[in-house]
């Protein structure tokens, strides 16, 4: 493992998103804040999802995790598609970087952006509502696991896509619906039976539910189940990603 080369690519990826921090960090933080203000204001006095937890407090972990995973996905997918479309991917493919080093660097940067945006949302939410932290390790563990998985999925999407609109389609028709239907704004127990059963097949639900457990010590499903499902999902997605990288899929002509 050439750690310095890997670290350089990681640093380049971090520099890339921090140079446009208004777009990559502040914009998603603001979006989350708007969700919080609107949904919180409308539903605060009408809904109590967990006993003793007001709706705004319930909403914050969901929005936070949604921001973390969407930005992790956006970072790796946009970096890959941009460098493919502009041709600058050759500067990564010509040096002696292995596929594993590329994977670690891209995913490391995706996790970093996800966590940075998450911290931004958390800081703003902290001023807005009471956000207890039941178990910080679970919170951090799920945030890292979720952003790792979504960073890997973003890299797969970036490799697969040949145009920017294909990435947008991936985001709008897959990531966004799965995130919105994962219990960010509600408990899946409040859903009709069919939607409840369907939600159990949505891996994003376990990301949100386990993450929320870290704040309140309460969740729709046992946290261990969510953790095991998340680990499995992460392993499957990252394995697919590494396999595609090694095969040179849409990167090196085969």
């Amino acid at each position, binding site marked *: 493992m050439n750690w310095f080369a890997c670290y350089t*690519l990681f640093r380049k990826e971090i520099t*890339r998103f921090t140079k*446009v921090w208004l777009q990559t960090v502040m914009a998603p933080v603001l979006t989350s804040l708007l969700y919080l203000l609107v949904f919180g204001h409308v539903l605060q006095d009408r809904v109590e999802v967990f006993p003793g937890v007001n709706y705004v407090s319930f909403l914050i972990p969901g929005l936070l995790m949604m921001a973390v995973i969407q930005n992790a996905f956006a970072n790796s997918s946009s970096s890959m598609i941009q460098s493919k479309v502009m041709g*600058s991917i*050759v*500067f990564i*493919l010509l*040096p*002696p970087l292995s596929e594993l080093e590329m994977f670690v660097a891209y995913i490391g940067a995706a996790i970093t952006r996800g966590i940075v945006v998450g911290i931004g949302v958390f800081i703003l939410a902290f001023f807005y509502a009471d956000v207890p932290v039941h178990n910080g390790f679970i919170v951090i563990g799920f945030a890292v696991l979720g952003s790792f998985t979504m960073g890997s999925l973003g890299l797969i999407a970036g490799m697969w896509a040949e145009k920017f609109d294909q990435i947008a389609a991936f985001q709008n028709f897959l990531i966004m619906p799965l995130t919105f239907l994962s219990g960010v704004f509600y408990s899946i127990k409040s859903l009709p039976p069919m939607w409840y059963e369907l939600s159990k097949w949505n891996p994003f639900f376990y990301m949100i539910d386990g993450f929320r457990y870290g704040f309140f010590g309460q969740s729709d499903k046992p946290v261990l189940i969510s953790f095991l499902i998340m680990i499995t999902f992460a392993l499957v997605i990252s394995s697919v990603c590494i396999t595609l990288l090694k095969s040179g899929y849409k990167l090196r*002509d085969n």
Partner: protein
Amino acid sequence: MSAIKLEGVSKRFDSLQALNDVSFSIEEGEFFGLLGPNGAGKSTLISALAGLLRVDSGKLSVLGADVRKDFRQARRNLGVVPQEVVIDPFFTVRETLMFQSGYFGLRKNDDWVDELLTKLNLMDKADTNLRKLSGGMKRRVLIAQALVHKPPVLVLDEPTAGVDVELRQSMWKFIKELHSKGHTIVLTTHYLEEAEELCDRIGIIDQGQVIAMESKEDLLARGLGSKLLIKTRDPIKSVPPELQDRVVRCEGVELEITLHRDQDSIVEILDQLKAHQMDITYVSVVNDNLQDVFVQMTGNKPASVKG
């Protein structure tokens, strides 16, 4: 040891056989020109060498390092200046070169990066974003990127396409300097005069196959040799029958015929023309250049000599 070695390399894209059992080697310290018409397979070959493309069969190595099995060493040995002008628009020139150094595992490369910036007249643009550079400057940055790790073998894929004359001259001065320091240079260009001026040995590739691989002198000698240009006082009405097969051009008072370097006697030809009642006013010998040889071998016009 060969700087570059290809053994039985083949690559097919759907119905197109881009490379067909290509084998040759380039020795250390050579200034080698790789020529061929559009779509001949030059860029495919360079991409395969650089690991950007995987071949169907055959072996490629750079200074003995196999481009697949020993990819790290092969890539350290090789610097590639791509044909397309590509940039990462997020970064300055210096950031780009420092990141590129890091990908090759080089921690402290500032001195060499400064030297590259100076040699390529980029020092005053070091902290400028790549988006703000002119096309010629971007191309110089590409050369600097290919050289950050001081590769012993440098491949330049049409590096002067679209570059003005002054920049082209300074670029070649720098490349010649690298060559004199022992770097192996492989050049593809569609400016055949560049290849003729710079390269020691030339390979011509056409339809995925190597059709010539010789020293520049031998390749030039492969041509019919030279042409004899004759001007007459009166318009030329006919040419002696024994010379008719060799007429290249006959317009007005000008006649151009091919000369076989080692076989023909100019005096004899002139005698034949005089005997044909031609009043000769001017005689000149024009040597074949690489362009003539290229056209004869590939049947392509020079304007399309691009891969």
